[in-house]
C-alpha cells in the first residue's frame, strides 16, 4: 500500500530527535498553560477577542493596509509592495544596490524564509547573515528550520558544536554557554560591518505605523543599531488597527509562544532617524508582501491569516510532536503549516495536499491558538478540496460503499448481522489494506452487530417505547 509521506517520515525519524521534540514542546505547552491560568480568569475569552480583532482587520484589510502605509510614509519610511516572492527579493536587492550595500544582517522572519531571500541575495553577491542563534545554525548547515519559534528544535548540542568547528568558530565544544558566547562574538563583527539590517514584523499598527518586533535574544535591535538602512519585509496580513489592540495581542503572544508574560525585547519602530532623534538607520523601507496571501483571503480558509506565528499549535500537536518540522516539507510546519503551506503553494497545491490529512482532528491546536483559528475546520475544507481535485490520498479508504450502506437502512441492518462473520475470518490475512493497517498494532472487539436492536425490540411490549 502506498504510504502517507508524513507517516513514513515518522517511522524513520531517529528516536533521539523525536524525544527532544516531544520534551521541548510538552514543556512549553505546560508553561503556557500555567501562565495563562495564573494570569487570567478567562483566557479563552481573550483568545476569542483577539481572534475577532484579527478577523475584523482581515475583512477590512484594504482600509487598514492603506492607513498603515499612510502612517509610515508620513513618518519618513518608504513603503513598497511586492506581489510575488521574486518581486520582494528584487525590491530588497534594488534598495541595497542603490545604497551600495553588500553586507547585511537579518533578524528572524518567517516571510523571508518563505521567499528564500538569503539564497537570492547570495546569488546577487550580497552577504546576508542570520543573527538569531538558531537561524544562524540553520544557515551554516544549509538546513531548514523545523519550528517557527525554535528553528533548531531537531538539533543536538553535538550537531551544533560540530557545525561551529567546521565554520572555524573554535574547537569542538558542545557546552551551550560556550556555543552562545562564540556566536555573540562572531555576530558582533557582522552587525558592525553590515550596511543594512533586514527584519520582519510581528505586527504593524495602522493608526501609528508602528512595526512591532519581538525577540528574546536582542538581535533585531542589534541589526538596527549600527546599520544605515533598515528593510522590513512584512506580510500584508500583519496589520492591526491600533496600539490599543496590541495590549491584547502582545500579552497573548509571549504567553502563547514561550510562556513569558512578554518576550524580552519588544521593539516599536515607526520611521528612520529624524533631526531630533538622530540615532537609527537613515533609511527605513517597508516591503508589504502578498505572495498569495490575497488568494488565501479569497478562499474559504482566510481565518488562517489571523495567525501571529506563536507556535503554540505546533507545541501541542501530537502529530508535530511525532514528526518534527521537516516532515511538512515547507516553511510552516505543524497545524498552521498544514493549512497555510498548501494554500501558499498555488498551483503546487497537490504536492502538499497530504498535509491537511496529517491530523487526528483532535482540535488541540484550536484550543491553544491565541487568535482562535478554527484549524480543524480549515483542515477539513482542504481535505474536501483535495478530494474534489482528485488528489490521491494513500491509505484512505474510498467511501462510496460506506455512503451506500449509510443511506440504506435495510442494507445497513443486514450488514450488521452478517458482520458477525468477521469473528470467524482470518482477518489479518484478508487482502484489505485498511484492515491490515489497523490489525498490525491493534485488535478489534468482538462483533455484536444487531444485538442492541433486538434488545430494544424485545422491550417494546414492556414499556411502550420505540420509534418509527
Amino acid at each position: 500500500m502506498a504510504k502517507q509521506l508524513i507517516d513514513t517520515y515518522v517511522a524513520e525519524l531517529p528516536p533521539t530527535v523525536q524525544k527532544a521534540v516531544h520534551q521541548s514542546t510538552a514543556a512549553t505547552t505546560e508553561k503556557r498553560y500555567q501562565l495563562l491560568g495564573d494570569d487570567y480568569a478567562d483566557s479563552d475569552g481573550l483568545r476569542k477577542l483577539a481572534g475577532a480583532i484579527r478577523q475584523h482587520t482581515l475583512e477590512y484589510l484594504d482600509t487598514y493596509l492603506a492607513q498603515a502605509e499612510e502612517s509610515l510614509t508620513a513618518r519618513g519610511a518608504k513603503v513598497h509592495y511586492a506581489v510575488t516572492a521574486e518581486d520582494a527579493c528584487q525590491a530588497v536587492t534594488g534598495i541595497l544596490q542603490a545604497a551600495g550595500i553588500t553586507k547585511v544582517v537579518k533578524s528572524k522572519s518567517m516571510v523571508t524564509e518563505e521567499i528564500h531571500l538569503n539564497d537570492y541575495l547570495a546569488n546577487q553577491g550580497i552577504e546576508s547573515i542570520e543573527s538569531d542563534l538558531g537561524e544562524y545554525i540553520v544557515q551554516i548547515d544549509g538546513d531548514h528550520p523545523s519550528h517557527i519559534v525554535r528553528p533548531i528544535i531537531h538539533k543536538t548540542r553535538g550537531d551544533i558544536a560540530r557545525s561551529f568547528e567546521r565554520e572555524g568558530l573554535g574547537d569542538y565544544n558542545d557546552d551551550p554557554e560556550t556555543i552562545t558566547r562564540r556566536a555573540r562574538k562572531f555576530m558582533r563583527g557582522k552587525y558592525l560591518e553590515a550596511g543594512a539590517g533586514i527584519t520582519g514584523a510581528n505586527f504593524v499598527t495602522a493608526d501609528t505605523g508602528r512595526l512591532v518586533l519581538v525577540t528574546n535574544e536582542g538581535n533585531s535591535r542589534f541589526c538596527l543599531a549600527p546599520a544605515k538602512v533598515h528593510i522590513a519585509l512584512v506580510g500584508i496580513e500583519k496589520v492591526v488597527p491600533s496600539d490599543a489592540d496590541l495590549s491584547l495581542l502582545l500579552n497573548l503572544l509571549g504567553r502563547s509562544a514561550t510562556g513569558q508574560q512578554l518576550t524580552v525585547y519588544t521593539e516599536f519602530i515607526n520611521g528612520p532617524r529624524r533631526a531630533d532623534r538622530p540615532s537609527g538607520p537613515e533609511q527605513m523601507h517597508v516591503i508589504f508582501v502578498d505572495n498569495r496571501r490575497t488568494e488565501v483571503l479569497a478562499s474559504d480558509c482566510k481565518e488562517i491569516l489571523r495567525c501571529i506565528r506563536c507556535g503554540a499549535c505546533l507545541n501541542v500537536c501530537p502529530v508535530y510532536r511525532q514528526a518534527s518540522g521537516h516532515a511538512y516539507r515547507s516553511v510552516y510546519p505543524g497545524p498552521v503549516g498544514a493549512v497555510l503551506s498548501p494554500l501558499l503553494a498555488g498551483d503546487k497545491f497537490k504536492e502538499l495536499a497530504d498535509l491537511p490529512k496529517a491530523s487526528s482532528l483532535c482540535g488541540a491546536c484550536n484550543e491553544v491558538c491565541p487568535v482562535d483559528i478554527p484549524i480543524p475546520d480549515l483542515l477539513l475544507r482542504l481535505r474536501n478540496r483535495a478530494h474534489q481535485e482528485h488528489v490521491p490520498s494513500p491509505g484512505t479508504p474510498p467511501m462510496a460503499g460506506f455512503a451506500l450502506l449509510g443511506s440504506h437502512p435495510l442494507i445497513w441492518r443486514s450488514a450488521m448481522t452478517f458482520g458477525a462473520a468477521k469473528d470467524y475470518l482470518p482477518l489479518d490475512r484478508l487482502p484489505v489494506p485498511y484492515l491490515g493497517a489497523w490489525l498490525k498494532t491493534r485488535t478489534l472487539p468482538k462483533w455484536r452487530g444487531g444485538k442492541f436492536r433486538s434488545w430494544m425490540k424485545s422491550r417494546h411490549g414492556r414499556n411502550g417505547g420505540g420509534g418509527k
Partner: protein
Amino acid sequence: MTARETIFAAIKSALAPLPEREPRPAVAHGVADAQWLADETDNVALFVQRATAVGTMCFRSSSDCLAWLFEQQPARVFIPDELRDVTAKFEGIVEVVRSYSRDQVDEIDTAFTPAAGAIAESGTIILTDESTPDRLAALAPWTHIAVVRKDTIHRSVADALAAMPDDPNIIWVTGPSKTADVEGILIQGVHGPGVQGCLLI
C-alpha cells in the same frame, strides 16, 4: 498596474463576496491585564518584584548599585552626562567614560543609560531614542543598567501602550537577552546584555 494596485485590487475582490463583515470588537482598556494586578497598590514595589522575576537586577539606591558594581570589577563604565548627578559617587571608584562610540564596543563592558519609563505589571524597562540616543550603549555591553525614575513607571502594559511617546524607536526590555535554542537550555546574554539592571531614582 503597479504592485500596489494589483494587491489592493486582489484584496477588494477577495472581500467583495462576503455577505457581512466582522465588526470591530470593543477592546476595553486593560482587558488583558493580569488578574492579580487589581490587588497591587504600590507600582514601584510591583515593578521591582516583576523585574526581579524576569532576571533584571533592581537597585533602590545608587550606593547599593555602586557596591554591587565595585564587586564586578568592570573594565570601563559608560555614564552619559545627564546621569552625572545620579552617579556622582561612582567617580574615582570605577573607570567612567562619558561618550560611547561603536569603536568601543569591546572595551566598555558596563553602561548606564536613562530609561524613558517602565511597566510594573511585566517588570519592563522602556527605552527610546530620546532617552537612550546611543542604541548600542544599551545593547552591546555585558552589563546594562537603566536608570528609571519612579514617577515614570506605568502600571500595566495597556497603560504603557496608551501613553506611547512620539519616538521612531521605542524598546521594551523585559529581562536580560536570552535564548533557549540549544536543546531548550536557557542561556543569558546572547546578543544583548547578559546582566540587565535597573537603578530606581
